[in-house]
């Protein structure tokens, strides 16, 4: 036990960014005895977090090319089922082979899944069509894996609800207008409450930049460099619940190769390009068309299904500059301790990650944050059941 820490008042960490990462980090830090304030300029999860198709990842998509990510996914998949009970559609998923090339990919795929700890079961064409009657009748075979569906807003909201209940100060509608740097140390941020126009400076022992594709813009406010570029992809929601299981194309990844059921809709994703401004992503119509055509290869009926919505969500793409800087906390997310990368103390950026790995990302970031603050406290989020999402609104 760190004696100095026990005599000091609890450290205060200010998190910028109200996405899944920020919420999970707030929750983790609170359980380690840290005081947390989180500021978000809009509604919680209104950045990238709320927009994804809602896949509860089994990791199967990564198994062949990136085993480390696959293992991380299936571990977090299991943990989330435990700490967020009642928050998922748990109908498993199918990786569907449409062409002979897909069929040839199957043995390596199944082997890689099993090696990563992902249960995988070969399913014949006849059985697959009985399980999911709207599948392309030309499909050849399928593999069943433990994918699931999450509500992309409500699942992360449980972290916020629990953090708020445990004493975190969560302030949406609060924009950071300035990062205060004194002698190459970040000591706080200037915030503006957009519901009132009131402004003030809030001090902190450490500021965490958890703003996803906005990471570079925010880091520059502290004179730091984070090579994160917004890389959006298009998603398409059509009317009709065409499947209960998540449907994936059995091939190394490509555009439009997943269909996720979301209530009475089916969400088809995704594609990929790069933009400069994370607030102006665009929704290229030819990408939307590609979702229709690729989705129809899995489920022909989506071709004529009515468009409910077409939108874009931006992944934070860590540029080549970042290949040599920053610390890889895992294959899917990275932490930039700006004391090391830019000579600015008291400021950390966390970037990357997937919807399913938010808790792991928070754990590793909290480890870094606590190490910097001299706090010795273990992570307790693996086994702490979270409050229901509605508790966020009922303080």
């Amino acid at each position: 036990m760190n004696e100095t820490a026990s005599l000091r008042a609890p450290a205060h960490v200010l998190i910028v960014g109200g996405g899944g990462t920020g919420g999970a980090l707030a929750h983790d830090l609170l359980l380690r005895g840290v005081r947390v304030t989180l500021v978000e300029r809009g509604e919680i999860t209104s950045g990238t977090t709320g927009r994804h198709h809602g896949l509860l990842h089994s990791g199967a998509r990564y198994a062949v090319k990136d085993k480390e990510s696959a293992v991380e996914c299936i571990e977090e998949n299991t943990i989330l089922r435990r700490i967020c009970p009642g928050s998922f559609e748990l109908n498993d998923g199918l990786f569907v082979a449409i062409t002979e090339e897909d069929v040839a990919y199957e043995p390596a795929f199944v082997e890689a899944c099993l090696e990563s700890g992902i249960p995988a079961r070969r399913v014949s064409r006849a059985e697959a069509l009985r399980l999911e009657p709207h599948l392309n009748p030309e499909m050849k075979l399928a593999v069943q894996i433990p994918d699931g569906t999450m509500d992309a807003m409500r699942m992360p909201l449980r972290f916020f609800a629990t953090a708020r209940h445990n004493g975190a100060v969560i302030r949406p509608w609060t924009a950071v207008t300035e990062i205060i740097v004194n002698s190459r140390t970040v000591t706080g941020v200037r915030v503006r409450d957009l519901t009132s126009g009131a402004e003030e400076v809030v001090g902190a022992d450490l500021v965490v930049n958890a703003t996803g594709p906005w990471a570079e813009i925010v880091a520059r406010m502290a004179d730091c460099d984070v090579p994160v570029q917004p890389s959006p992809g298009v998603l398409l929601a059509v009317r009709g619940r065409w499947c209960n299981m998540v449907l994936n194309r059995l091939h190394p990844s490509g555009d439009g190769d997943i269909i996720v059921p979301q209530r009475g809709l089916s969400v088809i994703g995704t594609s990929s390009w790069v933009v400069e401004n994370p607030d102006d992503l665009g929704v290229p119509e030819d990408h939307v068309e590609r979702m229709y055509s690729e989705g129809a290869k899995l489920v022909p009926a989506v071709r004529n299904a009515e468009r409910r919505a077409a939108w874009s969500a931006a992944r934070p793409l860590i540029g080549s500059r970042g290949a040599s800087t920053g610390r890889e906390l895992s294959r899917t997310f990275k932490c930039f301790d700006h004391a090391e990368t830019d000579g600015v103390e008291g400021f950390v950026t966390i970037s990357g990650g997937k919807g399913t790995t938010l808790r792991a990302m928070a754990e590793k970031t909290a480890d870094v944050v606590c190490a910097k603050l001299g706090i010795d406290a273990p992570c307790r989020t693996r086994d702490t059941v979270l409050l229901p999402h509605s508790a966020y609104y009922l303080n």
Partner: protein
Amino acid sequence: MAELQTTPTHPVRFRVHRRKAGDSGGRFDTFEVPLDEHRTVLDGLVAIRTGQDPSLTFRHSCFHASCGTCGMRVNGRDVLACVTKVADTGPDVTVEPLANLPLVSDLVVEMGAFYGPFDRAGRPLVRESELLPGGERAEGIDVLTRYEDCIECGICVSACPVAGSDSRYAGPAALAAAARVVLEPRDADAPAALRFADDEHGIWRCHVAYECTEACPSNADPGGHIMRLRRAATANRVRRWFGAGRAAR
């Protein structure tokens, strides 16, 4: 990378309700935004906040009618902004916050007032999923599940004439949630949900305007659920009068 395909845009005039803390009343600000035919009211609001007025506050998250956060009154109708196309609203769009819920700022309403009664129904988020025609369950899956239709957007509360004039009314969302518990209890407390709903400020306060069902963006049919709950409540009372069945009170 090849040039992204672009679609021709047209100017759309937005008249947006504004109100900040300490203001004595609301006002309207007008903005003009160039948008193409596929774009929605929400795309317009995001463009306004990004390019014209960063102080504009509004709720949104999923962009596809699943999170329920972007409920607003657009040209007088209660809708989700993310699926309301500007091609359908026309070039003049008036945007106001949902009615009958407390206002925080601009278009943001306080959802605590929604979840207060809603949570009392005790309805789980997940229900049994319909088996697709000819479908089966996969190995290891005992029950197919899916999310409840209701996305907790508050549109039904905004559209309800009774919720507009009676602050004690539980509201269509909370009552429909209670109906779902009674119809499919899962591990929830069905008698408690019935007790909550079978009340003068609950299901008996509804006057069958059915604006809730008409406005619901997710086919949750709150009006129909209130009626189903009335049958259940009446049947329960009749049973108790005749001494049979478990008392709900």
